[in-house]
């Protein structure tokens, strides 16, 4: 019965939150270090953290909205333009995929810290999430500016964004924990993740509407957990209304589940890190 005891599960949750608040200074310092370290000695420095996603977003908008001239929007069903539709799915996914690819290698990359320094290594996967979140917020800001410029007003639903970001953060931390700890033992994982990140964009409804997909292939969208992430963001940023409550429920369960399972897996595997690294 103890497996199902909710209090015990809640304690594990509280433990992690306690750990992160206690070491919040260090966590932020590490995140800051990651940004400065990656681009130190370069002329544009930290600009590149937003430079990369900005360029990618620009290319996609140019190809799909300008070259292919895909036009949707202007109706009650589809209130805003195609660029907004594209960006509202692309932005959360780019943030998530950055976490995934970084998470798989974070323990291996910091092997010397894990082996030689006494410090809470639970922080390592979290710092990557913080860096990705920074990008997410900047990209969202750009989107908001774009919507304001084209639509001259913001849908009221935009107030829900913090809740989504919070849920996504939990999901990202969980995924990061799972990938980082499993990645230590199974080093090919980071290549699997890289391939998945490359094709992932096309197997979720970012560039197209789910209704445009032939019915026999549509199940792919539903079994991809990241589709729910995209749908939730589109609900708020593009449609301005919650289309399906169950999508939100699935998303919330996925994020909380990943967070909980991730922490448990990490806790279990971390004792053996020193032996494998």
């Amino acid at each position, binding site marked *: 019965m103890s497996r199902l005891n909710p209090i015990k599960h809640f304690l594990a949750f509280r433990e992690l939150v306690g750990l992160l608040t206690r*070491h919040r*200074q*260090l966590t932020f*310092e*590490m995140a800051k*270090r990651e940004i*400065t*370290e990656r681009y*130190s*000695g370069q002329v544009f420095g930290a600009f590149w953290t937003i430079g990369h996603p900005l360029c990618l977003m620009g290319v996609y908008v140019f190809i799909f909205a300008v070259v292919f001239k895909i036009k949707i929007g202007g109706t009650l069903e589809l209130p805003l333009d195609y660029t907004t539709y594209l960006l509202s799915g692309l932005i959360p996914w780019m943030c998530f995929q950055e976490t995934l690819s970084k998470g798989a290698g974070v323990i291996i990359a910091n092997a*010397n*810290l*894990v*082996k*030689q*320094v*006494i*410090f809470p290594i639970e922080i390592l996967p979290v710092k990557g999430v913080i860096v990705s979140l920074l990008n997410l917020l900047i990209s969202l800001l750009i989107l908001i500016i774009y919507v304001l410029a084209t639509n001259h007003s913001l849908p009221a639903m935009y107030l829900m964004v913090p809740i989504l970001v919070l849920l996504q953060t939990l999901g990202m931390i969980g995924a990061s924990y799972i990938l980082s700890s499993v990645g230590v*033992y*199974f*080093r090919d994982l980071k290549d699997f993740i890289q391939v998945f990140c490359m094709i992932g964009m096309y197997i979720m409804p970012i560039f197209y509407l789910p209704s445009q997909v032939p019915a026999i292939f549509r199940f792919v969208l539903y079994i991809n957990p990241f589709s729910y992430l995209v749908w939730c963001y589109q609900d708020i940023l593009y449609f301005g209304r919650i289309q399906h409550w169950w999508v939100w429920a699935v998303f919330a369960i996925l994020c909380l589940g990943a967070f909980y399972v991730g922490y448990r897996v990490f806790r279990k595997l971390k*004792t*053996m890190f*020193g*032996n494998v690294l």
Partner: protein
Amino acid sequence: MTEPVIEIKNLSKAYQIYSKPSDMIIEMITGRTRHDLYWALKDISFSIKEKQRIGIIGPNGSGKSTLLKLITENLTPTSGTITVNGKISAMLALASSLNPEEDGISNIRFNLLMNGCNPKIIPSLTEDIIEFTELGPFIYSPVKTYSTGMNARLSFGITTAMKPEILVVDEILSVGDGYFMGKAMNRMIKLCDTGKALIFVSHSVSDVRKLCDTALWLENGSVRKLGPVEKICGEYEEDYTKKRDASERIGNREKQKNIRIGSVAPGSFDSPGLQRLRIVPEDSEKEFSDIHYIRNIQLDLDDNEQIKVPMEFCTLSVEQPSCLDVLGSEWGRFYNRHGADCRLLFANTGKSHGGHLLFHPGEKRLENKEIKVSCSFLASSHSDTEKLVIEYLDCTTVSWQRAGECISERHGTHWERVSASFAMPLATAEQIELAKEVIAMRAKPDVEIIDVAIYSDDEQAVVVKERQPFDIRVTIRANRLVERADVTICLYKSDGTYVFWQSSGMNPDNIYDTSQNIFNLEGTAEITFRFEQNLLNEGKYEIHVACANGFDITYNNPQSEQYDIKIGFGSLVILKEFSEQNMDFGQLNMRVPVDVYIIGKG
């Protein structure tokens, strides 16, 4: 009685060794073991009391760093427990957490945070660190511009800044200069006085001597010795210096090797009734050229008693009539290969040749003249090129004998069974006494250092006053006729600093004069180093003495063959005599006259 700061009970640590990474995945999926186990530490127990400063010494790969990482919880033990009462701060490797791109200040801040420091006291600690490390303007430069020594200073400053209760330092400080080294040592001692304990790992025995009060000697993953620092370090140095010397001197090497393979170690017959077998390569002239894994050693005595020899480290008793000589012969670590417990066996300088095993045939059988023995074991090796055979120690002739015909046959996919049946002569009490004498005679070096004494005003003394003349008299004895001999003395201060050195083949004008060597020595000789002008400062000095076959720095050092070496044979105490502050001469760069008096045989 206060409770120990660190208590370690039956601690073992095994590393899993996979021949390829995919083995790990297959093992995870199928649940079948596909790895070997390397026992880096096996069954270690000791405790560290409050205010104790413990130094861990031992050759490379003896398990020192593994032990430290287990104490700091960077590794988890395979079995056994570690109880730590107190907050640990560790310096396990140089600059592992320093970011080369950032300057010293931000690295200090970051590392303090990482060690769990309260952000409020960071500014004051940072000031302490800057002052202590004396990096000056470098503190504002990126760490990548630092030299190795500066890196060590910064790492050490950060590690010790937070006044940890238990300080753990691995071999890293040696890169710093002497001045900083001294400063760091003072700080470590002070920290230990205010805190709880210090654990220090170093290859430099003199550093351990200066810093620690207790020494732990690790070898082959087990505790070889634990005790007061002077005693243990002395023994370690004796062992280590001898080994190093044997391997470095070309003159010694060939001779030593041949002696080692055929020799019977002193002490082989010390316990009555004990019989000794060994596993050696088939080519009796050669050392092991491969790494062997040995397990499942079985003995059958007179066809009616089976004994299984345990692969673990153990001692003999009535219930346990057989064991491996793990410390004295070439046995390596406890290991797990292809899923079976075994022990490594490979060439190891400084130890008796082969893998020895001891057994007691029982009082009843000792009455007979000989004993029928069947011995078998399973072996596996890396390249499968070297065959193994069994030899027994024949006490009637005091030599190793091939145990009949050794049969090798395959046993499963990975192992080979080696077995031999032979009759082994049992010695009478008189024969054993004789054998002991033979061994003792053989074990004696060509020339032995018998005595080192200090004489002042023709009276033997240990304590000499400042400026008072004295002699150091070394007595040597040639057990066999030697063509040439030369005696060298070395004085070290008790803190390990070198002070004085002279060879008897060196005249007072500091010129190497090989004609001063002792020629055709037979029997005893006395060599006197006359310190007519005593410039040594007050303090305790250790005397190291060596005897070699001539000393000629340009032609044959260190090729000369060393007969005997004694580390810390005698000690000399210089008493303070003058009240005014004396000038400290430090290293004495002078020579003293030497007298040689041949006493001869008898």
